[in-house]
């Protein structure tokens, strides 16, 4: 369980990046955070991952207090973050060395490192690239390696800060598939995005605006909260489902493709 109380954060310029954030996120929840550029969502992810320290407010993940410097090692073992640009996250020239680096820093034994590397690479379908050079990988594959590095520590909370914004559509799909599998594994996922269609991946959506939480709702209530999302380029499929609802045709809002929706409509017609 993540508990955030009265979280405030100012930039060095004195401008408020986040103000008065109060939030509770249950364990195993998949939360998507959406907001325009400068809304404070990336700052929030850095604070939530414990990478940036804060003075005002409280963030607790189970018994871990993120403002407590003495718990830094435990924080790193429980929270992992994946950034937008995989190039910044990969340090070594070999996939194995790169994943092992984080595990060594956190004090895992050699045998445990071996097991965790294999398991994490399996989770992202990249096991065959274990001994590959990172320079030979595509951007999408690099991002999957970055996710594997984070998963290797077996974190309670995985934060993804716009992980697909630099990827092509097929790489994006691969990341979505990984996330769907992770969701079932019971890990808490905080997914920060700029793309409205990605909110369908999660169970709950939080909209950030000017450093504040504008709206917080569950996926089942998405259709009744569409007005809060009108500033974003809403995917046609959701608008279509919303219109169908207004005509009394109830189709559950899932991460549907046009083909899947057509099939569902066909079934309803029968």
């Amino acid at each position, binding site marked *: 369980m993540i508990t955030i109380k009265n979280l405030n954060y100012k930039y060095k*310029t*004195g401008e408020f990046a986040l103000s008065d954030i109060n939030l509770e996120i249950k364990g195993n929840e998949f939360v998507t955070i959406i907001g325009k550029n400068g809304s404070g969502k990336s700052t929030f992810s*850095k604070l939530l*991952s414990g*990478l*940036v320290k804060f003075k005002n407010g409280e963030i607790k993940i189970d018994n871990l207090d993120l403002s407590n410097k003495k718990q*830094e*090692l435990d*924080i*790193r073992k429980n929270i*992992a*973050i994946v*950034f937008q*640009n995989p190039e*910044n*996250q990969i*340090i070594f020239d070999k996939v194995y060395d790169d994943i092992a*680096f*984080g595990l060594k*820093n*956190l004090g895992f034994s050699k045998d445990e490192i071996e097991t965790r590397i294999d398991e994490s690479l399996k989770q992202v379908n990249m096991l065959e690239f274990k001994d590959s050079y990172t320079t030979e990988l595509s951007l999408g594959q690099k991002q999957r390696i970055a996710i594997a*590095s*984070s998963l290797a*520590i077996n974190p309670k909370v995985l934060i993804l800060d716009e992980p697909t914004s630099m990827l092509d559509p097929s790489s994006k799909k691969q990341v979505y598939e990984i996330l769907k599998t992770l969701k079932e594994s019971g890990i808490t996922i905080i997914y920060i995005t700029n793309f409205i269609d990605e909110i369908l991946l999660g169970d709950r959506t939080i909209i950030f605006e000017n450093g504040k939480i504008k709206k917080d709702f569950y996926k089942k209530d998405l259709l009744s909260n569409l007005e809060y999302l009108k500033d974003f380029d809403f995917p046609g499929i959701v608008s279509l489902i919303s219109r169908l609802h207004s005509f009394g045709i109830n189709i559950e809002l899932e991460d549907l493709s046009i083909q899947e929706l057509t099939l569902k409509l066909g079934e309803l017609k029968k």
Partner: protein
Amino acid sequence: MKNLILLLIFISYTTSIFFISNWIALLFFILINLILIFAFELNLKRVLINLYKITPIIFITFIFNILFGYFEEAVLISIRLYIVCNITFIFTYKMGTTNILMSLENLFFPLKIFGISPTDLSLIINIAITFIPVIFRELEQTSLALKNKGVKPY
């Protein structure tokens, strides 16, 4: 042409500061800086932040001068550096990078005699300046990624 003249005035101003040891003359330079800050309606907070950022470097210079020279010399050089940094901030803020680079291109014109293109030189400086914020951004991202991988201090 106007920008080139301004650039030449700026160079003369900053150079002359280092040849002045008279306290009253230095005070006069500080006064000029203050007048310029108010005349150009600069944000005082930004000016102070800029001076604060440069303080560690000036402090090191101050310590070195105390160790190898006289105390008065150390104070003098620190004040000179503060004045130079301040006037550079005012100058770059008011003139803008593009204008400075165009002026530099005019200033480098005589180098054509030696077969050096002033446009290329100006372009090199432009690229270098443009990449400063990019480098800082990348540096921040990489350091966060390293921290995420458990790099000390934790």
